[in-house]
């Protein structure tokens, strides 16, 4: 199915952009008229993926983060977060609950939250080249005026 609308944003890996990415997703997805909880799930999921790019992909430098949001007629929202950072050696291990290389103040919960708050998470990563996280979530379609 072809996306009926698409948003693509590229921003530097500054932490101030975490809130911006959430707000951009929420504003764009609003056209599907999502429920409050669905919107909150999407905001949380995108926050996790963008934060990972900012914290882990570029630990000592700034680099580009690209966020793509695609909306489909059947209510599917596809969120993609791509970085050109250092990549992940072992994706399966990185996705295990509570696994972290981030030290004391990180909980290793980001991927678990993405999995819990969306319907599907895929991660493609090449060490030294970067990581792409793709998440799908289905928004319940409503007849206009209801709810």
């Amino acid at each position, binding site marked *: 199915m072809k996306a009926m609308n698409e948003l693509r944003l590229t921003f530097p890996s500054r*932490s*101030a952009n*975490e*809130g911006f990415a*959430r707000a951009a997703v929420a504003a764009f997805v609003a056209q599907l008229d999502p429920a409050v*909880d669905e919107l*909150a799930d999407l*905001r*949380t999921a995108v*926050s*996790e993926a963008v*934060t990972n790019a*900012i*914290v882990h992909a570029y630990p000592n430098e700034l680099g580009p983060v690209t966020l793509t949001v695609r909306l489909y007629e059947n209510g599917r929202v596809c969120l993609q977060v791509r970085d050109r950072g250092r990549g992940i050696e072992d994706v399966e291990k990185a996705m295990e*609950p*509570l696994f972290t290389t981030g030290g*004391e*103040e*990180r*909980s290793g*919960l*980001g991927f*678990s*939250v993405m999995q*819990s708050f969306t319907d599907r998470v895929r991660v493609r990563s090449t060490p030294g080249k970067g990581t792409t996280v793709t998440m799908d979530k289905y928004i319940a379609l409503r007849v206009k005026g209801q709810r």
Partner: protein
Amino acid sequence: MQVNLTREGDTLIAAISGELDHHTAAAMRQQIDTAALSCRCRVLRLDFSALTFMDSSGIGLIMGRYRLMQSMGGCVQLQGVSGRLERMIRLAGLDKLPIWNTQEGKE
């Protein structure tokens, strides 16, 4: 994001409002830790009732404060936990820790 710190007897209450993410957590952590270290309270109560957003950075913040209070022989209590936040707390396995404010119970 804002932290409001008040003291009630042996309890330091940190009321967090706004959005708690990786970007805002650093300043918040510093404010809470400075107050906790100087007041030497036994209980640190984190009040989330005015929170509008939180991701896993908030779980990191809770875990870090839990460790800090434990190292001083104290404890952490959570208050104003929304359904969404509780879901994340469960994902982290923190629901097994004695951190629920018993007067309020689990929401």
